[in-house]
């Protein structure tokens, strides 16, 4: 069991493609951290540097107190469950799991016991003598986990563990992985592009984009006060809407004027103070689809409100989904199952004030920090 620390880690591939830029990240002992970001954001390169499958261009990686930069993967006492499971096709499941033990010529009774323990923990005792080709996706996932855990690693790394499973298996494995971590309390890093997985399983989430760490925090920190526009747009499904507008103060009130005058919003004191302090030229108003209430008549109860026009409406069983146009900009919102909207009907989007976010138009940095 060990803490994992990355200090000023860089990874530059041939033709100076900067995959990871000045990454500082520490994962507490026994913590479940998710490394979340779109494909090509450097999360896989980071994972491969920790495991030792990629050279570290600059910076240090500590596991516990040891610097592991120059250690072979096998000497780092880390284990990796591959995205494509990477099982050994010609070997049986038992041989797959015991591969690393046999490579270190440990006694065969000890190997037998360790394999059976980890197999029962993951519920795959009955397929130990089958071949990788003959088992399903969920089972393959468990075998690759068993192979990682049988070595009793200090750090367990999961590379997009659920991306090749179908929806039902994915939901099931999410709960299994969460319970497994609760059982083994091993420092675990989950690399994924699917924010549902990260949110559902990990205690803390590190969001990366273009090789740069955007924000690290629990789900609430990352979801409820995102550090910048990217994190706000990436975490949360369906993604946050952004409306480009400009601040204009009239007397001691501050208004946000929508692109081409499509809307005028009076800011509440808390937000006005932040805007006056940071003085951004343009602002992106962020609002999540679930924090928008649709009303067919202009409201009076002083909530922040945007006039809009229905572009498409979809009835989806448990809820509805509407894409409305505020001037030229599109806003996606959810509707209760009973509501029905028709093409280019006029509606008013009422926003919960405590869930409206403001970002600097140029830098995308949140103004609420």
């Amino acid at each position, binding site marked *: 069991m060990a803490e994992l620390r990355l200090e000023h880690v860089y990874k530059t591939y041939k033709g100076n493609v900067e995959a990871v830029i000045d990454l500082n990240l520490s994962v507490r002992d026994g913590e479940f951290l998710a490394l979340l970001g779109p494909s090509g954001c450097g999360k896989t390169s980071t994972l491969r540097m920790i495991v*030792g499958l990629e*050279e570290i261009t600059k910076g240090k990686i500590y596991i516990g107190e040891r610097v592991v930069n*120059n*250690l*072979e993967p096998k000497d780092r006492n880390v284990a990796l469950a591959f995205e494509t499971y990477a099982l050994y096709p010609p070997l049986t499941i038992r041989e797959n799991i015991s591969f690393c033990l046999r490579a270190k010529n440990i006694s065969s009774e000890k190997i037998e016991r360790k394999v059976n323990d980890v197999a029962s923990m993951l519920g795959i005792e009955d397929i130990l003598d089958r071949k990788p080709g003959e088992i399903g996706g969920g089972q393959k996932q468990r075998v690759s986990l068993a192979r990682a855990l049988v070595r009793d690693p200090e750090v367990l790394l999961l590379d997009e563990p659920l991306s090749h499973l179908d929806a039902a298996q994915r939901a099931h494995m999410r709960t299994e992985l969460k319970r497994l971590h609760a059982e083994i309390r091993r420092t675990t890093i989950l690399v994924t592009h699917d924010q549902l997985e990260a949110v559902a399983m990990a205690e803390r989430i590190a969001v990366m984009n273009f090789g740069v760490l955007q924000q690290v925090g629990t789900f609430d920190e990352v979801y409820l006060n995102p550090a910048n526009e990217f994190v706000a747009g990436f975490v949360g499904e369906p993604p946050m809407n952004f409306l480009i507008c400009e601040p204009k103060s009239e007397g001691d009130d501050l208004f946000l004027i929508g692109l081409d005058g499509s809307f005028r919003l009076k800011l509440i004191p808390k937000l006005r103070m932040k805007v006056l302090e940071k003085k951004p030229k343009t602002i992106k108003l962020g609002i999540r689809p679930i924090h928008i209430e649709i009303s067919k008549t202009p409201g009076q109860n002083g909530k922040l409100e945007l006039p809009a026009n229905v572009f498409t409406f979809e009835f989806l069983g448990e809820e509805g989904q509407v894409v409305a146009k505020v001037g030229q900009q599109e806003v996606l919102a959810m509707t209760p199952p009973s509501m029905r909207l028709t093409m280019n009907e006029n509606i008013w989007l009422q926003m919960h004030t405590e869930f409206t976010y403001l970002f600097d138009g140029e830098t995308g940095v949140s103004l609420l920090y």
Partner: protein
Amino acid sequence: MQTIRRRFRSILGDLFLLSYFLFALFPILWMFLISFKKTEELYTTTFFFHPTTENYRIITIGESYVQGTGTFRPDFPKYFLNSIIQSSAAVLVSLIVGVPAAYAFARFKFKGKEDLAFTFLSFRFAPEFTVLIPLAILYRKIGLYNTYYGIIWVFQLITLPLLIWVMRGYFEDISPEIEQAAMTDGYSWWQVFWKIMLPIVKPGLAASALLAFVFAWNNFIFPLILGGAEVQTVTVSALSFLSSEQAYYNRMAAACVIASIPEIVLALSIQRYLIRGLSFGAVKG
């Protein structure tokens, strides 16, 4: 992370690789070398000599010289032409007959398909004399002995199985849905074959045709048995250099160099598709 042991192992590996390629390439280089040696210097020098192109001149323009029992005009260009005509004609026939058959094997289901395909493959492995001996009799009876048609026909044993199996692999790589889409778009199966299937497999088709050409060109046993003087190929003629008392090794080397140039060029041009051709589509290069 390059440990000492790993670097030592890679040097050892490179050494072994160099020695293998020395073993593989030196003979070709040496052949090329002595094809420029004068006859006098043949026995006295090894690497340092006055290069001359007389050997190439003699075997190409041709010159009669006394050789034991009679004059012998090694008109090498004629043999070279024979090889080109016979090999390319054989490949052409196989293309016309084999490619549609390969398409049928790849796409259609009909009785006895796999046995038929396997019979074609078994021709490739059958010892040549099982068919050469009967053909020797048959050809003399129906006058195909020592004719282009005879050789082109027997070359089918080499070119047809190769083209059928390799092209079958290429056709099977194309998703059936592309054909279904084209037919749904309003084209009959023939137009789909002509406008969609053939253009897609064109590179593979060209490569396997060239490979079939090389195998036909390199064949020695068929023209030896079924071909007389008129249709002699380069491979059969190369041997005749040795039978003369005054062994003109340098001229033989020159003949070998000229005989090998087409293959080397072809091999380089179809590098990417070689694997498939060599393994009859069993290994996807």
